[in-house]
Each structure stands twice: as structure tokens, then as C-alpha cells.
């Protein structure tokens, strides 16, 4: 697994990552990738991971950078993260030509 920015969060990150991978890819019931998942089962572990990481992001001043980037991006997201039908790149999609 990839390392955390904060070595002290590595353990809890690994527990969360493993949980997520299991949820995301599990063969049976294979829920998420089959499109039948009802919930992300790993929220509890994520909360622990987040708690560890938030402190580090704050201490290093990264949280401020993140907030600025998110502010800047609000408009971009509306423009670029939109559904299939109006995505210009699809103009050269074989199904539509």
C-alpha cells in the first residue's frame, strides 16, 4: 500500500485502505462494481484515519492550501465533472460517430 504523508497515520491508513479495497472489489457479492452497493462500509475506519491526518495537515499548513484549491475549483468542477452526454471528447467516440 502507498505510504501516508504522516508516518504516525500509516497503520490506520492501511486498515482503512484494506477495508475500502475489499468493499470496492470484493468478488462476492461484488457489490460496488456490480452497482448494487448500499453503503460504504468503511466509514468508521475512515473517521479514525481522518482524525489522524487532519491534525498533520493542520500542523503543516496544508489544510489552508487545500481550502484555497477547493475554492478555486468550484467553478471548474461544474464545467468538467459533468455527465457523459455533453462531454465534448465524445464527439470522436466511435459509438456516436
Amino acid at each position, binding site marked *: 500500500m502507498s505510504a501516508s*504523508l504522516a508516518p504516525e497515520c500509516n497503520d490506520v491508513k492501511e486498515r482503512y485502505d484494506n477495508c475500502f479495497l475489499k468493499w470496492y472489489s470484493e468478488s462476492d457479492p461484488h457489490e460496488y462494481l456490480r452497482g448494487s452497493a448500499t453503503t460504504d462500509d468503511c466509514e468508521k475506519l475512515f473517521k479514525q484515519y481522518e482524525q489522524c491526518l487532519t491534525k498533520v495537515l493542520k500542523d503543516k499548513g496544508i489544510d489552508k492550501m487545500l481550502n484555497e*484549491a477547493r475554492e478555486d475549483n468550484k467553478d471548474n468542477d461544474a464545467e468538467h465533472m459533468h455527465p457523459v452526454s455533453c462531454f465534448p*471528447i465524445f464527439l470522436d467516440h466511435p459509438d456516436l460517430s
Partner: protein
Amino acid sequence: MVKFYASTDNYPYPFPAVTLAYFLRYPNPYSTHVVSTDTISRHYDPETQKLTTIRLHLKRSKLPSAVLRLVPRSILGASASGDTQSFILEKSIVDIKNGRMDTESQNLEWRGVLSVVERQSFIRPMSAAQEDAKIFQGMEGAARRHGFLSFGPDAKVEDTCESTDVHSSVTLHSHIGEKWKKKRNAEDSTDDDEQPQKMGFFKSWSTASLQRSIEMIGLKRARRSQPNAKEGMKVVLERMREGGLVAVLEGMRRDREAILGGHPHAFSNRRPPNDDDE
């Protein structure tokens, strides 16, 4: 002035495998410069079945000497040899229902000097309607389609004829010399310090030509790093095909050890010097 790079590609792997490989692409033998990856938020919407993930990567890079000639190291926080670290913010949305994943990565620091936004869309080539129609062609095909991906200890990605289209683009935009964040600076009376301003060392350049030069450097770098990013994904997908999730995790463990131990994998020698990957 904005520079733009775009490419279209195809991975010979099913869409779900590609989305998983995207989440698991670091570390890989082509990404020895990626120091860490953290998930900072993740949201699953059961109604739309969309999974939104925001991650923060820390990457080591070497600033191109051309940049160091334009902007002094002290301003960029780089070492004497041009070594520096940068945070990359990555947002991804997996839309499993419609068979597409959209991703967007951007640098967090020095966005005034050069903002680099990389976007990728991974798309399952067949429409849902076509797939439904195909089911009538026989249950065998349907079973293969739905059972192609499983990750138990012995599971492997089975060979099917499925593939995933990839559209990539990189947008580079330099605001150097501009007062591009007026609003924020107005709130902050001590503004000008962090503002990437036109200062003595490049006064002789016109703002536009300086921006163009910096964007060109970024563009060259993006062009050079794209193949490495793709090779990295391929390594992860190949491991998945060979030995499922177990093989991917084992490979990651080895790559991470190699990075920590300062013995980068043989693959990394193929990286061009001064390269920076996506």
C-alpha cells in the same frame, strides 16, 4: 495564454479493473518519486452509485534547469540541485452505472507560477443498451461479462475482449506577473509577499513571454511524463491479471521497500532524468 496537451488511448482491460488500478497505481516501478498518497475525503452516493474520492499525493521532483534559470530557487523552495517536493490534489468520480471514471489532478503550490491540471476519463466503450442487447446473444457471454473480475486469493482478471478507453489532457496556465488573486489579496492587507510578481530578475521579460516560456516548459514535461504514467498503470493492471489483488498489493509492498531502501526498481532507470511524471 494556455497550453494544452491531449491524447486518447485504450487499455486492454475491463473498466472495473482499470478503476481499481487507478486507486492502486502508487507505488509502482515508474513512480519512485511519489512519496505518499492519502485519501482526504470519500463519498459514496447510493442513489447515483457514484463514488467521489479526493486524494493528496506528495511527489518529489527536480525542477527543470530552464525553470531555475527563470525563477530563483529560493522562491520555489528548491534545494541547490533543484530538488523539491510538491503536493498534488486528485479528485475522481467513478460512475459505475454509466461506465466512466473522471479524474482531475492539479498542483497545490505555486499555482500562480504554473497551474497544471491533468484530467483523465476512463470509459467503458460499450453503452448499457448495447450490453443489454448482447445478453440475448447467449448467457455464456453475459456470465463472462459479469464474472470477469473477482479478487479472492486465487482470483484473476479473466481474459475477455473488454477494454477501456482513456482520454487524457493536461492544461497548463501561468499567471506569473499577474495580479490573479485580487479578491484574496484585498482581504489580506499584507498581500504582495506571496504573490508571484514580476520582480527584478525577470523585469526584462514581458509578462506574456515569461508566461509562455513557463507554460512551454510545463508542456514538454507533461508530454514526457505521460508515457511513464501509463506504463505505471499497465504494471498494476498486469499484476492484477496475473495474480489478482493479492499480487497487486505484494507488488506495491516490494516497490515501496525499494523506494524506502533507496534501491529503485530497475524499471525506474527508464525514466528520463529530471522527469516529474503526472
